[in-house]
């Protein structure tokens, strides 16, 4: 396959890294040119140095571990609730009509607005944070699961009926597999919002360790280098979580026609 010299760049595998590298260079140049107050925009190396320090004294690992633990517990609960309720509403027309309007309304309420309620019910420690994460991520999972079940081509269900499948068999062998692409769309959103919710929870329920806490501490002591380093770690972790999900998705949904 011959490729134009001009187009060659587009095909390089690491082309996605170019933009962030350029941004970092510009950042460092701004610092060196003393355009901004160094308290507000520290040098790239200061941030890296902070990072080193946190890794050495174990704080980064503590924070990362704590945040990931919260995230995965909250996400698991959200997946369990979201998928099971989504399937139930999708399969039973009546249940859908009765419960969906309520869920559609509740999901409009920002999780942040629920913080006073959550802190009252769950306290100020781990349970509250996990509740916050669940609230943040359960609805996209539920709605997408529901739509996946509803949207199944009726054709496939008829095939099941022709072969005398029981309702349970239909669910396991036809409805669930057919709804999986939609469910994964919901899971992507769930992973995204649960990570957002994790950091948010750490901002509002500040007791305990976590990446969000690192940032809050940095902010409180005006250490922007700490803050920026924390932000990077959060960003990269979120990105990796999503990649992990995409990998699992590719394996499970290998039968899907790739629309590229």
């Amino acid at each position, binding site marked *: 396959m011959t490729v134009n010299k001009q187009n060659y760049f587009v095909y390089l595998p690491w082309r996605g890294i170019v933009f962030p590298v350029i941004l970092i260079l510009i950042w460092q140049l701004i610092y060196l040119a003393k355009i901004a107050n160094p308290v507000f925009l520290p040098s790239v190396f200061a941030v890296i140095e902070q990072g080193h320090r946190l890794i050495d004294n174990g704080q980064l690992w503590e924070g990362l571990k704590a945040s990931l633990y919260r995230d995965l517990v909250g996400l698991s609960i959200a997946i369990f609730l979201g998928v099971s309720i989504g399937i139930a509403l999708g399969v039973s027309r009546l249940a859908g009509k009765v419960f969906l309007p309520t869920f559609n309304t509740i999901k409009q309420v920002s999780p942040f607005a629920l913080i006073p309620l959550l802190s009252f019910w769950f306290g100020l420690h781990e349970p509250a944070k996990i509740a916050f994460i669940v609230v943040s991520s359960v609805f996209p999972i539920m709605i997408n699961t529901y739509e996946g079940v509803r949207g199944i081509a009726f*054709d496939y269900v*008829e095939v099941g*009926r*022709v*072969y*005398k499948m029981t309702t349970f068999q239909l669910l396991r062998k036809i409805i669930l*597999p057919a709804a999986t692409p939609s469910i994964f769309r919901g899971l992507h959103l769930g992973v995204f919002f649960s990570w957002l919710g994790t950091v948010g929870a750490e901002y509002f329920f500040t007791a305990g360790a976590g990446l969000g806490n690192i940032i809050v501490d940095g902010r409180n002591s005006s250490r922007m280098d700490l803050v920026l380093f924390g932000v990077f770690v959060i960003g990269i972790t979120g990105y990796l979580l999503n990649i992990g999900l995409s990998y699992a998705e590719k394996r499970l949904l*290998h039968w899907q*026609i790739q629309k590229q």
Partner: protein
Amino acid sequence: MTQQGTLNFSQVNKQFNSNNGNLKVLQDINLEIKSGEFISVVGSSGCGKSTLLRLIIGLDAEYEGAIELDGNIISGTDLNRGIVFQEHRLLPWLNVAQNIAIALQNAQLSQEEKHKTVQEHIDLVGLQGFEKSYPHQISGGMSQRVAIARGLVNRPRVLLLDEPFGALDALTRTRLQNELQNIWEKEGITMILVTHDVEEAVFLGNRVVVMEPRPGRIKSVLDVDLPFPRDRTSYDFLKIKKEVLKEFGGHLAAEISHAEAPVWSTGEYKLSW
């Protein structure tokens, strides 16, 4: 061997009730189908032929009259009645072997027997080597062959085919028609094929049931008294085809007679003008 796969329609009527009034879809359908027969049902759109198949397979149970399989009134779906739809309807997340096997989900067979019969039917439709392929990896013609295997794997008494080759290109269609005829001759299962292709109907059927729409009813039933395997280019074949076309209105038949050229069949010369 007891006669299996006989179908009897007595005064079958069906109408759809809606706010805009009642639409009579099938009217006074009376038909007797013998064991092992191949019945082609031809008709233009809206003549109720697909609806009729859905009644036989049991996906639709609201109608008047009686449909009997070997003397028993049919109710609901059953493994002794199989169907091949126009869209292959293979489950995309299962491979070829698994798609055929899913039909045996509720069959009273041991795992070994199931495995054996799945392989037999893969061989029957000529897909050896593709057992582990997925629907998105095989062509339309191959997918429809899997659908046929799936329809036959339960050894039903009657197999219904709802315009099974409609979505395929002409070359594949012709090839699959030949293959279906071979399978039918080999297995001896009663088959009912619905199509709007007159040539397909005459090629495959012992009898051709012509239906007309609004309301859907049987116009006539023509015998196709030709030996198997059929020869599409023989004079007799074209003669019957022309007879069937005549049922659809004069102008179609007139076109055919204009296009008729001298026909040469292999081995002997027959001049027709």
